[in-house]
Structure formats: structure tokens, C-alpha cells
């Protein structure tokens, strides 16, 4: 376009300019999309960084089976009494941090056993 012509750009020229701008924008957005990760995937990366040994399939059978076994507690009175006797003499290995599964490997101590529920009182909603 000649710099000295002051008349407004023709329709044809406007079309060309707009299509150039449009294409430039397309390229920019495409680049942006490639760089932006969905928030969900970013969170997944964070989780994998913190727990590298986390299994691949969270919905898999291990996860579901743990859910189905909620509330399971194992107790052997023989082990318990022996542990109580032994505890007087030496310290036993401390319980695993995961307190939800008291299995045969871990000798339950009085502190681990579920507390007897307090006596049943009326609901405060009815108060």
C-alpha cells in the first residue's frame, strides 16, 4: 500500500489484513495450548512427585478391596495376652502408622483396641 494515499483501505485490502491477523492469532493460540496442561494433569503430576510408588490404576481392585474391607479388625487373644506379658520386659516394635489394618503381624496392644463406645445419650438435635 502506498504510504502517501490517504484514502481508506479498500474492502479487498481490509480482508487481507484481517486474515493475516487471524492467522497470526491462530498460531499464537496453538502454541499456548501446547504449553498449558489441564489443571487435573498438573495435579496428577504433583501427586506422582510426592508419591512415586503410587500405583497406576487408582480405581483398580486393590483400592476397591480396601474400601470393601472397611471396619475389619483382627484380634487374637493369645497374641494379645502374650504381648501384654512381654511388654513388661521389653519394648515391642511400634505399630505401623497405618492404624486402619490391625493384622496378624502386628500385636495389638491395649491402646490399639477400639475404645468402648460411650453410653448412649439423647441426640442434641432433640435438646
Amino acid at each position, binding site marked *: 500500500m502506498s504510504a502517501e494515499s490517504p484514502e481508506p483501505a479498500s474492502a479487498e485490502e481490509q480482508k487481507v489484513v484481517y486474515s493475516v491477523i487471524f492467522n497470526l492469532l491462530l498460531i499464537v493460540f496453538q502454541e499456548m495450548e501446547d504449553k498449558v496442561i489441564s489443571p487435573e494433569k*498438573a*495435579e496428577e503430576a504433583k501427586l506422582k512427585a510426592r508419591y512415586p510408588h503410587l500405583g497406576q490404576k487408582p480405581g*483398580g481392585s486393590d483400592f476397591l*478391596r480396601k474400601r470393601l474391607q472397611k471396619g475389619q479388625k483382627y484380634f487374637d487373644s493369645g497374641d494379645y495376652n502374650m504381648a501384654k506379658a512381654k511388654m513388661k520386659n521389653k519394648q515391642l516394635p511400634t505399630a505401623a502408622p497405618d492404624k486402619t489394618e490391625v493384622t496378624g503381624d502386628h500385636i495389638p496392644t491395649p491402646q490399639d483396641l477400639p475404645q468402648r463406645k460411650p453410653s448412649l445419650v439423647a441426640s442434641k*438435635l432433640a435438646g
Partner: protein
Amino acid sequence: MSGGIKQLAGRDAILSGGGNDFQWCFSQVKGAIDEDVAEADIISTVEFNYSGDLLATGDKGGRVVIFQREQENKSRPHSRGEYNVYSTFQSHEPEFDYLKSLEIEEKINKIRWLPQQNAAHFLLSTNDKTIKLWKISERDKRAEGYNLKDEDGRLRDPFRITALRVPILKPMDLMVEASPRRIFANAHTYHINSISVNSDHETYLSADDLRINLWHLEITDRSFNIVDIKPANMEELTEVITAAEFHPHHCNVFVYSSSKGTIRLCDMRSSALCDRHSKFFEEPEDPSSRSFFSEIISSISDVKFSHSGRYMMTRDYLSVKVWDLNMENRPVETYQVHEYLRSKLCSLYENDCIFDKFECCWNGSDSAIMTGSYNNFFRMFDRNTRRDITLEASRESSKPRAILKPRKVCTGGKRKKDEISVDSLDFNKKILHTAWHPMENIIAVAATNNLYIFQDKIN
């Protein structure tokens, strides 16, 4: 519209526009104020009965409290009927299954009312293993003038009785008694998550993680297994049942949802064991957007048929979806409850909040839906206007008839005044259970150990 739609009370036809054409006001709050919440006091289920006159709550301590709506007072026209305590009883107690080394919680998972057929009210309440049918009846008369015993109940000396009299009925202070009429036990190996009364008023279903059983209300020693998704080899287990419900009008149809985000509709006429579904509802997923969290957040925590029976609603971790029963390949409406949590999934997984089971409910005319969120927020969506609102159940906005102010979560950048940022949300204050009166704009919202009742503004 198809038959079976509840008649709306005259005045509510004006208000049937849904959740956002008017304002919600605080009405009542029940429960203790103290900060230290005993675990037993945590409300685990809320349910209105068919008329809306009774509101039942169940808690983790196995107790049921029923509120009754007071008759409206003509001399105080501005006070809509308030809900006051009608009856309370211990429904379930903690048990220990010695054979399986299983502790059975007394927590009430669900309460479902039976339609009223006589003066007494009946409801089903269930914990993880046992369902009980409770009869709640009123006694307002007592007999006086017995021949064989005197007024304090002491037996009279038969040799002293010289005349016969006919006992007469005298009025007494109203006494509401709850008695267990049926106990439906030993039918579930896994934990019961749902019960649903059939429209035939004779049967009901109970669903655990892997099986659904059909019961007759009169028969406690037998139930029919109608769905069994337990694989022969437990290593092959890929999904569990998360919720189930009978169709409101077709007594042969029920649905159940899964941890994989799918819903199956079954017809009991097709076979005795409904392992093969009649319809399978699943929204196609974009495989490129799949992540570690995809399956967990797609798990459906609640499924509810609309009153009309034409639609059903499902709640997953981040959204509520409305499905047309005639279209299986995708929902007809999707509402984002708290999409801003998508960028917090890592910490929500670590603190287990990602496994929270939120419920959802319809209003009486199916024009609005409601569900809970965190920070004691709850959300309402108007299906007609597509408007949504976030409200809060808090003691601060608990003045009588105070209008609830809409709340807004700021997702980043500049936080406006009155907005709350995502990082300031209290994830311990979760609203999992809400209920909407079947005919009027009255809602009950359970916030941990408190029950809030809100009503629409009276002009």
C-alpha cells in the same frame, strides 16, 4: 406431563419457578453450638416424608430425630409452620461381628419414609448391615377406671372388689412412641449404601457395594437378590455399586450407579436376576483428558429420580448431571458444583476429601436441584433459567427471617470484597446431606452436627 405428579399446594404454583426467583431466608437451626463436635452428633441423613410435615434426621450415633411442622398460626401470619421435635429414638447400636472381626457402625446411612396409610407413620432406617422398620404412633388418650388395678397401676385385692365398672377413655398429654416393627438383618455381606421404597408400597430394595436385594415389608427372613456384581475372582473387581433407587411410578424399574460413573437401569420383569441392564447411561470421556483422578471424581455418590419419573440426577465429585431416561449416551444437563476444586485434587486426595459422598435433591416441581459443597456452602440450580446460587449455612446468618446472601468463591487473581478464596475454604465443613420439602420451598441442610431449615421469603 405424565400422571403421578404431586399436586402442588395452591400458593406454591407461583413459586414453582425454582431456586432463584425469590430469596431464601433463615428459619431455624437445630443442634449444639459448641465447637467441639462429638462424632456421634454428626448428621448422616436427612429426609422429609411424603407430605413434608415430618422431617427425619439420622446421625453417626445411631439415633433418629423426627421434627414435625407446627400448624400455621392464624394470629401470626408471618411465621410459617416451624419444625419442632416430634420423636427421637435410638435406631441402631454398635455391634461387633465376631465371626468376621468386623466392627459394625451404628451410623444411620439412610432413612426412607413409607407413604402414610393410617394414623401412624412408618420409616425405614439402615446402618451398614441391618434395616429396621419403625412405627411412630401417637397416643393422646388413656383408659381410666380399670377393675383389677388402681390408678397407679397397683393390683387391687380381688376380694375387695365389690362392683364392676367400665373403664373410660380420658385425654392425656400427647405421647409419641417409636417401636421397631421389623428387623431385616443378615442379608448384606458388604456395606449398605441405599434403601428405596417401591411405588407398590409393599417392597423395597437395599443395596450394598456389590449386591442389591429386594425385600417385602412384611417378611424379614427372606430377601431376593436382584443384582450381583461380585466377580468370581475378587482380583477382577473394577467397580462397586454406589447408590440405587426405585422408579417413582414404575414398580418394576430401578437404577443403580457405580464408582465408574455409570448408571444402569434394570427391569425386574425381564429376569429374576437383573445382572443384565435394560439401559446403560454413561457420558463418553475424552481419553486425552484422562488422569489419575478421572475415575475417582467420576464416581457417582447419589442418584435420584425426578418426581415426574422422566429424569434422573446423578452427583459426582465436581458436578451434578440430569439425565433423560430416554437418552443413554449423555446427560441432558450438567451443572458445575465447585469446578475450582479441579486444581486442588492432589491435596483433596491426600486429605481424603476426594472420597466425600455428596447427595443431591430435586424440588417438588423438578424445576430446581440442590447439592452441598465445602465451607458449609450449598448450591442450587434453576433448570429453567439456568441460574445458580451459592448459599451458606452458618450461625452468623442465623437471625430469624434473615435473607441469605449469595456467596462467591474467588478462583484466583483479585479477590473482591465478600468473596472467599479457594485456599480459605474449610474442607471440614462439608454439606453432604440436604432435603427439599416435597411441595413447598422449604429446605433442610445438614452442616455436620447442625440442621438448618431455610424457607423462601414471605411477601
